[in-house]
């Protein structure tokens, strides 16, 4: 009888140990999970911190440069009005205007990206013809293209139905893409802006025969702050927010934006907008 009780006790003890082990094992798994969460959290915080570290000096530089120019031009106009020629006064006033516009653009870009990141970015769609938007943007850039000796063409061909899109925001995307293409095109280069319809969307392309984008930079090109290594000259200028904002605008329409090599040289930026 004693042996029987002893056996029962041993079995009971074994079961108890097994249960304790299982509980401990499950707790350890929880702890491992917790550890992983902690590591992911630390990594996320480090990434945010590093983005902030990149963001603030860049923003300060982009704001301070036009502000310094505005302040300097105003100072000259106040202190030396009598000594300045009419042409010099015109140059300084024009400079104040153009630096103020640059400043407003930087502030607008920062606002857009912060709205996109906070999930508060909204578009306002109206029914319209995208070919009008393309022609208007090409017309806007024609003088700059002429100055840079770049052939800018907008041969929008084929039938494209009217559909709903935010024309101001699509203009902003085209403005960014065309300005980049002209900027990085060599003299006597070509920039072609085109649109076509496919099954359910309108596809818009901005193609140039410029320096292109190095393979290593391609996956990063739509990330905020990123600037291709062969396109920024020595050192880097600009906020690096332009293409990230383009992506946000197109995605807010339910569309997609991507880039392809434009063989034999250059790059094509392509975006699709769903017809609705």
């Amino acid at each position, binding site marked *: 009888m004693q042996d029987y009780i002893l056996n029962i006790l041993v079995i009971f003890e074994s079961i108890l140990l097994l249960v304790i082990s299982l509980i401990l094992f499950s707790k350890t798994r929880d702890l491992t999970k917790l550890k992983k969460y902690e590591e992911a959290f630390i990594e996320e915080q480090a990434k945010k911190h590093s983005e902030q570290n990149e963001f603030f000096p860049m923003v300060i530089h982009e704001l301070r440069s036009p502000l310094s*120019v505005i302040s300097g*031009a105003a100072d000259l106009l106040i202190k030396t009005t009598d000594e300045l020629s009419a042409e*010099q006064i015109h140059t*300084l006033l024009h*400079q104040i205007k153009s630096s103020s516009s640059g400043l407003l653009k930087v502030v607008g870009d920062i606002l857009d990206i912060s709205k996109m990141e906070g999930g508060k970015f909204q578009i306002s769609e109206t029914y319209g013809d995208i070919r009008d938007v393309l022609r208007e943007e090409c017309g806007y850039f024609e003088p700059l293209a002429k100055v840079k000796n770049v052939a800018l063409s907008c041969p929008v061909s084929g039938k494209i139905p009217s559909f709903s899109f935010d024309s101001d925001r699509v203009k902003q995307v085209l403005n960014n893409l065309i300005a980049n293409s002209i900027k990085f095109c060599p003299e006597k280069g070509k920039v072609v802006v085109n649109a076509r319809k496919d099954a359910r969307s309108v596809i818009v392309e901005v193609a140039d025969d410029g320096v292109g984008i190095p393979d290593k930079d391609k996956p990063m090109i739509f990330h905020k702050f990123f600037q291709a290594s062969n396109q920024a*000259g*020595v*050192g880097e200028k600009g906020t690096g927010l332009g293409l990230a904002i383009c992506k946000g605008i197109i995605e807010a329409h339910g569309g997609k934006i991507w880039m392809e090599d434009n063989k034999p040289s250059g790059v094509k930026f392509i975006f699709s907008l769903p017809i609705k």
Partner: protein
Amino acid sequence: MPKKILFVEDDEGFYNIFSVPLKMKGYDVIHVSDGSLAVEKVITEKPDLILLDIVLPGTSGLDILKELREREETKEVKVVMLTNFGSDDNISKAMEYGSNDYLMKYNIVPSELPAKIAGLLGEAQESVVRVTES
């Protein structure tokens, strides 16, 4: 003969606000916006002083300065870095390569730049003004 200043600057805004007071004081200001053309311009134009930005397309201002100091024909020319980038690393490199001064664009009032330049060229401000009047 007015003193010649080569201004290596790719930002049109900064070029406008700093070149206007220099021209008013009688300096002959020449402009280059592409860094890769700067050394060649120094050799052909033989300026008395160079205002040199750091972030430039083509070649950086620091590399231009280094090359100027290495070349026999340009090693003595006065160079003033005029930039918005005031990191310790940039300043110490500029000084190591032989910059004559390092000015921050947002710290210097454009109307005061001619006096600074006159000092570096060993001129009294009045003499520069006389050049303008003559």
